[in-house]
């Protein structure tokens, strides 16, 4: 109780004295680097530091989970993406491999060769060579990601760096460092004093209003489906409305489409806010689409991850950036051949259709749902009702800054500038410059840095890009003792990774 009162006092002050912290009775430790979040963003950042020879003892990670992929896996599991299912991610986007080589594709090809699965090995080799022109993009399975991260966790000593708990708030110290306050599962408070604070707090699932006000369990979130949901739909021939045009909606629809419409006479309806207008970006190139779905291999065009479009975005003024981001990262789904084939078949057999509009009201009607739709503004139709057995919301993730207490608290306490999109303004090196001191930096990566100079911040490659840029800037500060890799030290570190030598 005493600690809680002390904590409240600290929370109210923007600048704290180190002596006060020491006298507070709250457990305190000092590290050079601390990462708050503990997910894949933290993992990529910490892995980058470890590859650049930063000692394990200099790093702490505040996390809810033991494993950095646990939250990600939870999202996948709940949207029925099992370990054997493929993610929407590039082969070289490997959180466990700083170099991106060999990518997951070469890994899988080699595993198939070793185990005598020649045809599978041939298929992967063909995909590597011919993607995306003659074959679908290679994408790794979720299980491969988990296993590779587990291996790297052991190599870099992740477990010893993790402090399990909930980060509470961050304050500047009078000695130009920062204090990160967190509560351990034992409910005790702790403080970590650090020179460099990295924030990668993830995102929250966007909850549509009707999910909050629902009175029936037939209205579901696509990120929290029960294990037996699809079996239940199959057995009861239930009709389902799916809201959203992103990857989760696409995957759910793929599983819902009846394999044989004669045997399973159910219908699947996509409810989309408005019909697709031709998505023509400033280059005057039109994005591919089908039946209301924008088709794009990854959530941003490939060249935004590290190529010419990344440079275009960096050079653009803030308003133009927003415009480009809107057209490049609008909800889309990969143009997978099998999925498109199934969808075309379902459209032809009328077991799948697309409806445009927004939900006005959902009412139970007998054992079903009557969903009142306000049509898309441009259509001159009257409101209409569709009937279904289930409604699944796949609106996606919410990147609004207001959902993360730590970000909003930092913004309010230190009057930090934000981007037009509402996220924290960061420099090209992902630093919150307004918080920088001669011996301290606060770094934000992942969805918290959305709307800045780099587009796909919330991707595996984006997390690694943030790590690279951060390390580049930290290596210029003598007190960090970080040195950038040269070809020789890079090969040496890569060989250590290849042979799984602990660092």
């Amino acid at each position, binding site marked *: 109780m005493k600690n809680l009162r002390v904590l409240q006092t600290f929370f109210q002050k923007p600048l704290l004295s180190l002596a006060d912290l020491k006298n507070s009775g709250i457990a305190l430790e000092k590290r050079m680097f601390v990462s708050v979040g503990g997910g894949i963003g933290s993992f990529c950042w910490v892995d980058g530091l470890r590859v650049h020879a930063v000692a394990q003892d200099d790093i702490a990670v505040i996390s809810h989970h033991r494993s950095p992929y646990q939250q990600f896996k939870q999202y996948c599991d709940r949207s029925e993406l099992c370990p054997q299912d493929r993610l929407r991610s590039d082969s*070289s986007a490997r959180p466990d491999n*700083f*170099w*991106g*080589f*060999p*990518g997951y594709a*070469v890994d899988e090809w080699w595993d198939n060769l070793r185990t005598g699965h020649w045809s599978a090995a041939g298929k992967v080799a063909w995909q*590597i*060579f*011919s*993607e*995306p*022109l*003659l074959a679908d993009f290679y994408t790794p399975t979720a299980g491969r990601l988990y296993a590779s991260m587990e291996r790297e966790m052991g190599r870099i000593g992740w477990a010893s760096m993790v402090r399990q708990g909930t980060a509470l708030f961050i304050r500047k110290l009078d000695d130009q460092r920062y204090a990160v306050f967190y509560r351990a599962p034992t409910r005790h408070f702790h403080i970590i004093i650090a020179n460099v604070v990295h924030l990668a707090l993830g995102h929250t699932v966007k909850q549509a209003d009707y999910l909050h006000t629902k009175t029936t369990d037939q209205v579901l979130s696509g990120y929290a489906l029960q294990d037996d949901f699809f079996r239940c739909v199959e057995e009861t021939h239930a009709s389902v409305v799916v809201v959203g045009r992103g990857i989760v909606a696409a995957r759910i629809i793929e599983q819902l489409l009846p394999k044989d419409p004669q045997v399973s006479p159910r219908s699947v309806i996509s409810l989309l806010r408005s019909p697709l207008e031709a998505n023509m970006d400033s*280059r005057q*190139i*039109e*994005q*591919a689409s089908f039946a209301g779905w924008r088709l*794009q*291999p990854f959530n941003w*065009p*490939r*060249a*935004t*991850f*590290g*190529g*010419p*479009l*990344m*440079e275009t975005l960096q050079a653009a003024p803030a308003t133009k950036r927003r415009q480009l981001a809107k057209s490049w990262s609008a909800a889309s789904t990969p143009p997978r051949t099998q999925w498109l084939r199934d969808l075309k078949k379902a459209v032809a057999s009328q077991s799948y259709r697309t409806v445009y509009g927004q939900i006005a009201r959902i009412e139970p009607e007998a054992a079903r749902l009557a969903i009142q739709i306000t049509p898309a503004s441009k259509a001159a139709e009257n409101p209409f009702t569709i009937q279904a057995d289930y409604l699944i919301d796949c609106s996606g993730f919410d990147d609004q800054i207001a959902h993360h207490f730590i970000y909003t608290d930092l913004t309010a306490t230190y009057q930090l500038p934000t981007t037009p999109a509402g996220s924290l303004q960061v420099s090209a090196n992902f630093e919150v410059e307004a918080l920088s001191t001669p011996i301290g930096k606060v770094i934000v990566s992942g969805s918290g840095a959305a709307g800045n100079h780099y587009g796909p911040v919330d991707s595996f490659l984006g997390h*690694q*890009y943030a790590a*690279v*840029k951060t390390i*580049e800037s930290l290596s210029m500060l003598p007190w960090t003792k970080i040195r*950038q*890799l040269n*070809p020789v030290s*890079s*090969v040496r570190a*890569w060989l250590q990774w290849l042979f799984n030598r602990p660092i």
Partner: protein
Amino acid sequence: MTPTLKGRIQTRIALLLLIGLPVGLGFGLGMQRVTLALALLGFALLIGLLLDPFYAYLQARRWDGDWPPLLMLIAGCLEGSILWLIVEAIAAWQIQPFSPFFAISARLFWLMYSTIWFVMFITNLGLLNIFFPYRRFKGGKLWD
């Protein structure tokens, strides 16, 4: 990794020096015509550098702005064919002393060209990143 024009040019020069030169010299020594091997490498570099802006333009016309391996192969075939046509033209026009200097059998030319191209292709796809880990986030650039 999707290259920028600068990244393309730098990668091409680096690959030619690191891979093309030693492998080409090996062929030159084998043929006992080191200067011919060096001249062909020089021409190949020149053709590639002249075509790079064209490739960058085509790449920019793709929604994803990428340059997949199959397009690399097509570009490699195009550059090899242009080089072979130049060699053939010099031989056909009987320009002294260049015609005898550039005389090479089609089989040997394509063996040398495809070997060098393939090793450079594989290196570019990933091995180069082991030496230059930051280049994949810089459009393939090796230096600023």
